[in-house]
C-alpha cells in the first residue's frame, strides 16, 4: 500500500493499541490471547493448506500434542515453561516427522481422512490414557514464575503477540521466496512442479513440519493461557473449527489469517447470547464464502483498491494527464 499520512497514522494508532491492550481490561486481554493463538494456528495451516494446497483435517491433533507435551513436562517433570514451550514445539515436529511418511503420500480426499484419523487417534489416546494424561479430567497447568514474578495473563499477552508477529514475518518471507513459489506450484500442479525441478516430497514435508511447529506452539501457549487442558478442547469437531480462520480469511493469505483469527474468535463471543443461532450463523458465514471465495482478505484487498481508486480520482481531478500518478495495484 502507498505510504501516506492517513496510513501511517492508522498504523501508529494500531501499534499503540496493540502495545497497551492489557490496559483495556481482563476480558480484552483474555480475548486477545484467544485471537493470538487462533492466528498462530491459522498461519501454520495456511502454509500447509493455503500455500502448498494439502488438506489438513487433523490440526487439532498436533495442537493437542503441543498443549499436552508442554503441560506434561511442566506438571510431571517440573520443567519451567521456558524449556517446556520449545520442547513442546519439538514434540509436535517429531510426531509430524513420524506421521509424514504415511500421510504425505495421500492426496485430497484420502489426505483429509488420513489427517483426521491421526487427530482421532490422538484424541482417544488422551481420553483413555488417564495415568499419563489425566484422561477426561485433564491436566492442570500451574503458573510459572521468573525471579519471583508470576507469569500471568499480561505477560502471555505480550509473548503471544510476539509470536504472532514473528510467525507472520516468517510466513510472509516463506511465501515470497522460492520456497513459497515451489509450494504454490505443487498446489497448482504437482506433476508439472516435479518436472520443473521441484522435489515435491521434500517440499511437502517441509510445509507439513512447519505447520506442525506452528500448531505445537499454539497448543503450548494455549496450555499456559487456559491453565487446565482436557481432551474436550481437541475433539473431532475442533479439527473443523480450527481451520475456519484460514478459510474465512482466505486460503493463501497471511493477512487473511489475522483477519480470520480476529473474526472467528470474536464471533462466538458476540453470539454467546444466542446459542441456538450459532450453527445458523456459521452456516451463513460459510455459504457467504460463495460470494468471496478468496475470503475476507480478498474483499479487503478489493475494498482498499476501490477506495484508493476513488480517492485518486477525486484527488487528481484537474491534473494534467502527464502529471497524473499511476495508482497501481498493491
Amino acid at each position, binding site marked *: 500500500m502507498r505510504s501516506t499520512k492517513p496510513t501511517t497514522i492508522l498504523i501508529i494508532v494500531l501499534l499503540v493499541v496493540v502495545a497497551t491492550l492489557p490496559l483495556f481490561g481482563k476480558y480484552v486481554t483474555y480475548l486477545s490471547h484467544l485471537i493470538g493463538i487462533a492466528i498462530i494456528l491459522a498461519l501454520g495451516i495456511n502454509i500447509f493448506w493455503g500455500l502448498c494446497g494439502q488438506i489438513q483435517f487433523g490440526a487439532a491433533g498436533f495442537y493437542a500434542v503441543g498443549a499436552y507435551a508442554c503441560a506434561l513436562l511442566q506438571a510431571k517433570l517440573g520443567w519451567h515453561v521456558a524449556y517446556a514451550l520449545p520442547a513442546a514445539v519439538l514434540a509436535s515436529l517429531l510426531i509430524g516427522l513420524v506421521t509424514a511418511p504415511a500421510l504425505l503420500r495421500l492426496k485430497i480426499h484420502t489426505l483429509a481422512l488420513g489427517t483426521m484419523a491421526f487427530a482421532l487417534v490422538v484424541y482417544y489416546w488422551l481420553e483413555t490414557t488417564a495415568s499419563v494424561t489425566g484422561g477426561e479430567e485433564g491436566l492442570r497447568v500451574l503458573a510459572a514464575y521468573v525471579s519471583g514474578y508470576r507469569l500471568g495473563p499480561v505477560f502471555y499477552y505480550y509473548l503471544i503477540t510476539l509470536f504472532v508477529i514473528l510467525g507472520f514475518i516468517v510466513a510472509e*518471507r516463506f511465501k515470497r*521466496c*522460492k520456497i513459497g513459489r515451489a509450494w504454490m506450484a505443487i498446489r497448482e500442479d504437482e*506433476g508439472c512442479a516435479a*518436472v*520443473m*525441478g521441484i522435489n*515435491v516430497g521434500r517440499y511437502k514435508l517441509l510445509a507439513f513440519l512447519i505447520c506442525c511447529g506452528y500448531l505445537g506452539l499454539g497448543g503450548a501457549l494455549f496450555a499456559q493461557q487456559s491453565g487446565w487442558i482436557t481432551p474436550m478442547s481437541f475433539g473431532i469437531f475442533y479439527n473443523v473449527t480450527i481451520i475456519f480462520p484460514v478459510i474465512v480469511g482466505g486460503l493463501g493469505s497471511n493477512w487473511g489469517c489475522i483477519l480470520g483469527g480476529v473474526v472467528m474468535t470474536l464471533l462466538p463471543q458476540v453470539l454467546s447470547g444466542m446459542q441456538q443461532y450459532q450453527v445458523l450463523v456459521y452456516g451463513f458465514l460459510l455459504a457467504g464464502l460463495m460470494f468471496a471465495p478468496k475470503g475476507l482478505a480478498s474483499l479487503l484487498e478489493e475494498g482498499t483498491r476501490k477506495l484508493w481508486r476513488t480517492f485518486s480520482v477525486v484527488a487528481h481531478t484537474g491534473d494534467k494527464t502527464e502529471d497524473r500518478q499511476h495508482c497501481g495495484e498493491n
Partner: protein
Amino acid sequence: MREERLLSIRELSKDFGGLRALDRVSLGAEEGKITAVIGPNGAGKTTLINAISRVFKCDGGEILFDNKQIGKLQAHDITGVGIARTFQVVRLFKQLTVLENVMIGSHSRMKTGIFQVLCRTGLARSEEENAQKDGMDALRFVGLEDKAGNLAGTLAYGQQRLVELARALASKPRLLLLDEPAAGLNPREVDMLFNLFERIREQRITIVLVEHNMGLVMSCADMVVVLAQGRTIAEGSPKEIGNNPTVIKAYLGKGWVYDRS
C-alpha cells in the same frame, strides 16, 4: 562406443498394462539441432517425451544424455541435468503470475537453503534477483514481458504456450523437449514459433520437437524421426521423410506433397 549425440535413446520400451507404448525405440538428437518426432496419434510420441523427462520408469532400454545414463533419475532431477520440457496441453500454474511461473523454471538453479532464504542473506537476495532477471529475459525472448504481472490463467491460449516455453527456457536447458507446441496456434503464431526456434538454435540449445504441423516440421527440422505404434519406422532429413512411401502411407497421407517453403 562413445556417443556423439547429445541425446541417445537405445531400445527404449514402455508398457502400460497390456499396451506396448514404446517398442525398442532407438533415436538420437544432435546437439544444436532440431530433431522432430512425428507420427499418428497413439504412436508413442508423448510417451517418449514423458520417458525422457522421467515422468515414469521405462521397462527396457536406456536413455543417454551427454553420455550419462539418465534412466534412473527422478523427475525433479532433469532440469538440473539440463533438460526442460513443455506439455501437449498447457500446464501452467494458473493462480500464479506469469513471472512467477517463469521463475519456477529457475528453481533448480537456486541453491540457497531455508535459513538463508528466511534470513534474507545477501546470497539469497541476489539469487532471487537473478531469478527475476532471468525470468524477465525469458519473457522478453517470447515477447510477453508486459504480461509479467498478470495471472497466468488469464492469458490467451497462444500466449500461455509462450509462457510455458519461457518457463522452460528459464532453466537454461541444453535440451528442450517440446510436445506439440503449435497445437491450437493460428498461422501467424506458428510463424512466430518458427522464428523463436531459429533464435533458440542460435543459442546452441537442442530441440526435440513432437509436432503434427508438417509445415513447421519440414521448415525447421534438421532431422525427422517417424514413430508409429510404438516403433520407429523411418529416420532422415525432412526431404527424405517427405518422400518416403512408408511414411506417406502410415501418416502423411496420399494427398501429401513435400514442399519446403
